[in-house]
């Protein structure tokens, strides 16, 4: 049973519960640092049009594959484009892919998970077998296949990643509902004649939110790597628009002449993925310390 459920059962008020979770989160120093890193990346992505020193798609044939310098802090690529500007703009594709894919997965997975867990019976069996089927296909291979059939683009990559990560949320919501629906306060809500949708939304859903938040944070990290992987393979963001994965795709052909082309996008991916992973761990400790 999660601490949230225990708190509700013990009659701990919502604001007090939130304060406790916040205190626990703030005590987790690495998670706070990770949150700062995530906020910084989001700020950079949002401010990219204003802080980029050059047009990310403008070529300069006199500056082809130049090493980092005062004029181009991170160097230039194979057709003279400024790497810093492309990195800043590329952060938009990565973060957008991470967040949108997870939103798609939640939008599809949460209702199915709630339904399977609450109703049970053959509906649960059907949804569970469909979830098993999706989980049986290795995540990235399914995403590559979906992106291939849908056509190569960032939007389709996000849809493909979203569909591939949906079963995680179906299972999570289903499991959480099955734990909570047998609690006394849910039985009480049912006994006083509350309709099923009200019980689901008012009494069960709030208990699904904390683990959902933790899982979403961790899945954003997975989705960012997946987007970079799809773009690296050429089925994600299409050139000349920048994304860290597509920048690595080009960089691998110029490793001996311009190693910096491969360095920066990889460092950025590692940093943001690490930040989301640490943030997810911190949120899990704060929202459900018993699980750790």
């Amino acid at each position, binding site marked *: 049973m999660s601490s949230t459920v225990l708190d509700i059962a013990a009659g701990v008020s919502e604001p007090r519960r939130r304060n406790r979770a916040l205190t626990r989160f703030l005590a987790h120093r690495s998670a706070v640092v990770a949150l700062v890193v995530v906020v910084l990346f989001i700020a950079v992505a949002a401010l990219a049009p204003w802080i980029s020193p050059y047009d990310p798609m403008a070529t300069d044939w006199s500056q082809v594959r130049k090493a980092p310098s005062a004029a181009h802090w991170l160097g230039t690529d194979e057709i003279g484009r400024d790497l810093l500007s492309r990195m800043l703009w590329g952060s938009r594709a990565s973060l957008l892919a991470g967040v949108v894919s997870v939103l798609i997965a939640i939008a599809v997975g949460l209702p199915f998970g709630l339904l399977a867990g609450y109703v049970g019976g053959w509906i649960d069996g059907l949804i569970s077998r469909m979830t*098993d089927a999706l989980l*049986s296909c290795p995540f990235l291979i399914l995403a590559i296949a979906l992106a291939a059939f849908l056509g190569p683009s960032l939007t389709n990559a996000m849809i493909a990643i979203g569909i591939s990560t949906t079963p995680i949320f179906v299972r999570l919501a289903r499991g959480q509902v099955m734990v909570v629906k047998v609690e006394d306060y849910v039985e009480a809500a049912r006994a006083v004649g509350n309709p099923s949708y009200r019980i689901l939304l008012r009494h069960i859903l709030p208990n699904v939110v904390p683990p959902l938040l933790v899982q979403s944070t961790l899945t954003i990290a997975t989705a960012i790597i997946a987007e970079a992987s799809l773009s690296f393979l050429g089925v994600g963001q299409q050139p000349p628009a920048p994304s860290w994965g597509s920048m690595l795709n080009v960089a691998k052909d110029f490793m001996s002449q311009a190693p910096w082309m491969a*360095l920066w996008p*990889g460092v950025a991916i590692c940093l943001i993925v690490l930040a989301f992973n640490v943030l997810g761990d911190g949120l899990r400790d704060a929202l459900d310390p018993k699980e750790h």
Partner: protein
Amino acid sequence: MLNFILRRLVILLPTLFFVSLLIFGLQQLLPGDPALTMAGEDRDPALIAFLHQKYHLDEPLPIRYALWAGSVLQGDLGESIRTKDPVAGLILQKLPVTIELAGFSILIALLIGIPAGIVSAVKKDGILDYLANMIGLAGLSIPHFWLGIMLILLVSVQLGWLPAGGYVSPREDLWLNLQGMIMPALVLGGGIAAVLMRHTRSAMLSVLQADYIRTARAKGLTDRVVILRHGLRNALVPVITLAAIQLGDLLSGAVLTEQVFTTPGFGKLIVEAVFSRDYAIVQGVVLCTAAAYMLLNLLADVAYALVNPRLRS
């Protein structure tokens, strides 16, 4: 035990049915007439008519599914649009390379992940624990393909120690084969080692708090015997089954690793098929990986039930 296996097989059947629906459904995602897309840029009307007939595109969807599933059950995964070779043959041809890569990767993952997990749990909250956790977290956060690129840059381009890519069959030259496998296997195995390390650590931590460990210590057994004979033996059971399940991640990772190191395996086949719009190969690879993954899951469940009788009921 037989009942347990039969029960698992019965659950597997509807899952298999949904997997087949999913893979068949992939083709329906193609915008417009699939024959037009498959016919390529020439759009030869004769070829389009032939494709309509060959793939029964004029038939209703349920009949097309039944015909497709019937062929798959007979081992016919269709043929490559580009080379006209049977897809099953192409996959079988590439499979040994990926199996070799997967084998080396799992070996590296076990050799790094399990000892690191044990040390981390035994030295909980010590420097080694923090170090192992940090490396583990880094292993989960570094994309395989980028690590591969960086290794090529350092080991092949700068130091010139190992080839940057390619593949030599072990039958031709075992030494060259091993040289070509070290870096891709290290890249793939490293990520899985991080997962195994985290699971070994948490399994060891819970086992080390068990009563029988306290009894073993009270009997005066040395730390080494307590940890290795009593602790590790029990903690390893879920970890080993997890290693089998990690095959799914391994196959996903192999797609990228094979691309970076130009290893001519399963992963490279699907990527090349995506770009040449050879959809039968894409479907075939997804089907084979899903089947392999399900089979390994079943084997892992059976292995787990064999050592843990409570699960059989």
